[in-house]
């Protein structure tokens, strides 16, 4: 093994199909990444708290939300599916990440989607994502390798 990195890189994986989410999670962990997962945009930004919708947030939930936000601060890259649970899709996520006062603007985003419509691809590229993978054209393994390479590329 190489010299230990000073900090483990964390990837946020957003994918609505749970079996796929679990596989990507465990494959990335095996590669040595820290992984956070979500199945909807709401889950990313509100730790899913909106869903409870009772106007009451339990203390545990607040702590959960704060922990979640703290973790969010440390993300090094995002793996994003286009279709997600709920009304918001990957476009919304990218817009929010790129807006946020510019703080997260530089986090690399990799879209991994079943959609190969060119207008979808173009919109993502215009929003500033780093790469767009059509799921059926790449094996999961290859996408993971590619992202790994990208993130470990020595900065010039």
């Amino acid at each position: 093994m190489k010299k230990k990195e000073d900090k483990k890189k964390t990837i946020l994986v957003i994918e609505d199909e749970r079996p796929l989410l679990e596989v990507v999670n465990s494959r990335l962990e095996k590669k040595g990444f820290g992984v956070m997962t979500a199945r909807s945009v709401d889950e990313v930004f509100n730790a899913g708290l909106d869903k409870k919708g009772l106007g009451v947030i339990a203390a545990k939930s607040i702590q959960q939300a704060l922990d979640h936000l703290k973790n969010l601060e440390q993300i090094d890259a995002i793996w994003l599916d286009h279709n997600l649970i709920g009304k918001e899709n990957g476009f919304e996520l990218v817009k929010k990440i790129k807006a946020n006062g510019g703080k997260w603007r530089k986090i690399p985003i990799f879209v991994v989607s079943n959609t190969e419509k060119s207008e979808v691809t173009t919109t993502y590229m215009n929003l500033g994502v780093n790469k767009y993978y059509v799921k059926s054209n790449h094996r999961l393994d290859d996408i993971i390798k590619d992202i790994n390479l990208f993130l470990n590329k020595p900065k010039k």
Partner: protein
Amino acid sequence: MITQPKKRKIILVVEDERPLVRVIETKLIKSGFDVVTARTVDQGLDYMKEIGDVDAVWLDHYLIGDKTGINFVEEVKKPESKWRKIPIFVVSNTASNSNVQTYKNLGVDCYSVKADHKLCQITEDLKKLLEHPKK
């Protein structure tokens, strides 16, 4: 249901028409399944391997690329395949007799014609098969 299964059953849906995939996915999730979708034979096989514990397959005949559902079934039902016993539902509009026969010969559990079967009926059949597996 009397006994709640520990884990949701995973259905791999191999189907290339996007709007249809979304409908199928929603229906299956509502029925308590976890779903993963693929649009080509190779993507489907990659997920079989990566996910490892797919419980059943919903398969269309015509898919993106040169391969059809028959190629998928041939691979899954190979004598040395560890996936041989996973039930496969072929759901297709292509009801040519020779295709249906090929699927049956390959050991497919069920062949439904989209036009004849309401999707919810197919979902029900799938549920039944998974709850009472054939020997």
